């Protein structure tokens, strides 16, 4: 089954990467942009999506500094 994991910096933690992107956008003429955060996306195919949560806790994310969100693509069956 296809699973997508979204990992982003925990709220409140300084995200200089997001800030740099936020500052760069107005230079290209895009105005009204705020709260930019840059994270990571991991796509995987797994036999048992129930274990993905544990994968996130142990390796894919560092829960001290990152939040994660698991999206299971069940082919529209749900």
């Amino acid at each position, binding site marked *: 089954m296809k699973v997508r994991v979204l990992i982003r910096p925990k709220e409140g933690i*300084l995200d*200089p990467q997001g800030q740099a992107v936020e500052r760069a956008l107005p230079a290209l003429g895009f105005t009204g942009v705020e709260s930019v955060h840059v994270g990571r996306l991991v796509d995987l195919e797994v036999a048992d999506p129930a274990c993905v949560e544990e994968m996130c806790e142990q390796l894919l994310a560092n829960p001290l*500094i990152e939040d994660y969100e698991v999206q299971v693509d069940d082919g529209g069956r749900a």
Partner: protein
Amino acid sequence: MKLGVVRFPGSCDEVDALLACRRFGEAEILWHRDRDLHGVDVVVLPGGFSYGDYLRVGAIARFSPVMEAVTEFARAGGPVLGICNGFQVLCEAGLLPGALLPNTGLRFLCRQVEVGVANPATAFTRACARGERLSLPVKHGAGRFHASEAELDELEAAGQIALRYAAGHNPNGSARDAAGVTNAAGNVLGLMPHPEHATDPLTGSVDGGKLFESVAQHVTEGAAVPA
């Protein structure tokens, strides 16, 4: 004293660390696939980019076979020094509190900084005086120490922030100016500055030698640290 320097794929400071160690004792390289530590008294995790720093700095190295032995060694009170990437690996492995994030300024930094000894009662600082300043180089892209405010308070109260950047020398935005952090027992130290690059007069400072002198005392005189 015999020191072992771990070489991960992607380590790049292990030879400097080995040469620095040899000024103070015997030293050898430990391979990341080794499952035993060859009877060394001290383990050094060197700087570099272990496993390409893929995913997060230090995240993959923590699962290498040698880290099981290092974890057991550290939990039994064995002295472990993590330098730069080694510090990042120790945090990911849960042997040290907190985590290291990209520098506030997003730039890779390479410069000499002044670091003060905030706790001289650890395995790696006992040859220093409280407040002593050490001149050490830093070179990293992800050296911003982070922990929750509550955890930072606890670390400070327990003296676990053993080394601090001097005023005006915090290069990366580290919380509480933390340059080096220990575990509760004080036998594991991780720091972003590079003591191994500051042991030869040719490089402008020999202050890094103080950390190796300290651990030599720790090994030969026993773990009891003068209050």
